[in-house]
């Protein structure tokens, strides 16, 4: 946007905030600089419509009304009480948490929104505290997907986006989803919703959304199911809940990563210990056990032995390239 248009919008905001009465479009055209440059009534109308829309998009509470019952043309004003952020006080530990939170974004759009929010809080009376340099929490970059999906969830609108499946062909596929909520788990963002095409609840990882999701249809069209467990949906998507126990033989002093997750460790006399390890998915158990090579042997269950041996054979049989 040109500096001239920004200037016109800023003057418009100031003018509408300063006025106690409703100002008609015609009056605004006369007094706010910039509109005099519009060459025709039609051009003014278009420019003014666009400006009103921009102000509303920015969250500026533009009121429409008439000053008396005899006015037939509506006017505009901005109520100061609705415009301004009310005075706020934060305790030092709350201010520290907010300051730290504002550092978390790795994408420019969310980062600059967070920065602006902090400056507004300060102007509203919040005293931010100096944070130690050494603390840098981060959330995964999600590009344009995050604000777009958050808005769709909030407005209850159907949303369409291109999605790259983790284990798929790599080509993004168009998905149409009734969005229910966003979940952050282990630094990653997920959307939980009803996938229209697959007619089922689905979890989507935001970093796999390609481009900007588009909200379609009316607001309020999406209803969240009662008793929805957002975090539960994501947890079950991410990893099968441990339901079974594996028995492993682990060379003494080795397999430290597995020992930390074991529910039971029995020390053997032969230089090998026996571990009991809870697991959910057999393939994932194999992923965990395989890196230890000859230091860990799966004893039970038989299907886990089968998977581990099968994968080791596949690797052992690879042709040298």
């Amino acid at each position: 946007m040109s500096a001239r248009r920004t200037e016109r919008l800023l003057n418009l905001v100031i003018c509408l905030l300063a006025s106690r009465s409703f100002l008609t479009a015609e009056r605004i055209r006369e007094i706010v600089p910039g509109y005099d440059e519009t060459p025709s009534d039609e051009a003014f109308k278009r420019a003014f419509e666009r400006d009103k829309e921009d102000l509303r998009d920015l969250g500026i509470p533009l009121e429409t009304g008439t000053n008396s019952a005899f006015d037939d043309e509506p006017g505009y004003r901005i109520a100061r009480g609705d415009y301004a952020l009310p005075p706020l006080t934060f305790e030092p530990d709350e201010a520290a948490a907010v300051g730290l939170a504002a550092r978390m974004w790795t994408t420019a759009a969310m980062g600059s929104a967070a920065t602006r929010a902090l400056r507004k809080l300060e102007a509203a009376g919040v005293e931010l505290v100096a944070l130690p340099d050494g603390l840098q929490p981060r959330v995964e970059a999600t590009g344009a997907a995050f604000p777009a999906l958050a808005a769709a969830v909030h407005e209850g609108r159907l949303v369409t986006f291109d999605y790259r499946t983790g284990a798929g062909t790599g080509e993004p596929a168009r998905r149409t989803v009734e969005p229910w909520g966003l979940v952050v788990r282990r630094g990653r963002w997920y959307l939980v919703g009803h996938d229209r095409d697959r007619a089922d609840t689905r979890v989507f990882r935001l970093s796999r959304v390609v481009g900007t999701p588009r909200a379609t249809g009316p607001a309020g069209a999406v209803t969240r199911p009662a008793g929805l467990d957002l975090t539960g949906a994501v947890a079950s998507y991410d990893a099968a809940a441990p339901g079974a126990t594996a028995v492993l033989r682990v060379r003494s002093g080795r397999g430290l990563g597995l020992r930390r997750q074991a529910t039971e460790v029995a020390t053997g006399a032969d230089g090998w210990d026996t571990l009991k390890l809870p697991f959910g998915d057999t393939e994932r158990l194999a992923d965990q056990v395989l890196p230890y090579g000859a230091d860990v042997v799966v004893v039970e269950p038989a299907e886990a032995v089968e998977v581990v041996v099968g994968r080791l054979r596949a690797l052992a049989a690879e042709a040298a390239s």
Partner: protein
Amino acid sequence: MSGATDHLPRLLALVPWIVSHPDTPVGDVARQFGVTEEQIRKDLDLLFVCGLPGYGPGDLMEVVYDGDRVSMSNADTISKPLRLAPDEALALIAALRALLGTPGLVETGAVDRALAKLEDAAGGHVAGAELAVAADPTVAPDVVQTVRDATTAGRRLRMRYWVPARDEATERDVDPIRVFTSGGAVYLVGWCRSVDDVRTFRLDRALDVEVLDVPADVPEEARERAHDDRVFTPAADDRLVTLELSDRARWVADYYPCESVQESAGGLVVTMRARDDAWVRRLALSLAGVARVTEPADLAAAARDAARAALGAYAPDAGSD
């Protein structure tokens, strides 16, 4: 809306901030808003010509410079910050919720109180129920808290740390420099006194941590070097490893920093830098059957040998029907 999303909101935040922070050096204002000093000067030039209808000397906002310091007056109409826009409220609220996913990094109570105040100030633009956090920490909160405290207080840490590539626990003293999170894991960057160099530690591998009553002593050049957000900084003499990933192993391209990623008939071909041969062997084993190392040939051969050695522990007919 296009450019207005950033420019007008910044101006509307800039005025109240300068009004409430008079006599601030322009450079500091620029840093606070995360833009260049030149941009702030342009913003101030624009504010200079805006104001109340009439637009005479008494109507326009006044920007007053004292040397390099700036103050504003005659800006009463917009001297209060605009309420948080949806994206601004979202940026703070979502990040605060994400912080809750790493217990120990901040006081959970303070985050909860800050969230309540911000959700109130956001006036229903962001509803907490739509943004959930799965409190599923990968690291014990007390470990994170101990490391955080040592980092902010500048104390030395004694750590028993598991090195997966060698599957062994090592004891070392570390002078903390900073703590960051990435992909849900929490990392400590510090001056490791056992090797006299900067090292990055994943805190879910810290078996024990203890704060020593010794001030941290980090060489200045190391402190500067440590401000790189990557979990792993490849060095020029690290070996370039080529991996063929089947669809089941596509996640590797998301998870590890790759130098190149190419689609291929069966999945992906990626290259990555590795400092430690043992690490590559471990990765190849964990991906047995779903991905293969093709280069360098000696590492591919080492992985095959390790798989054969591991198979030796199973009966010859194990895994077959």
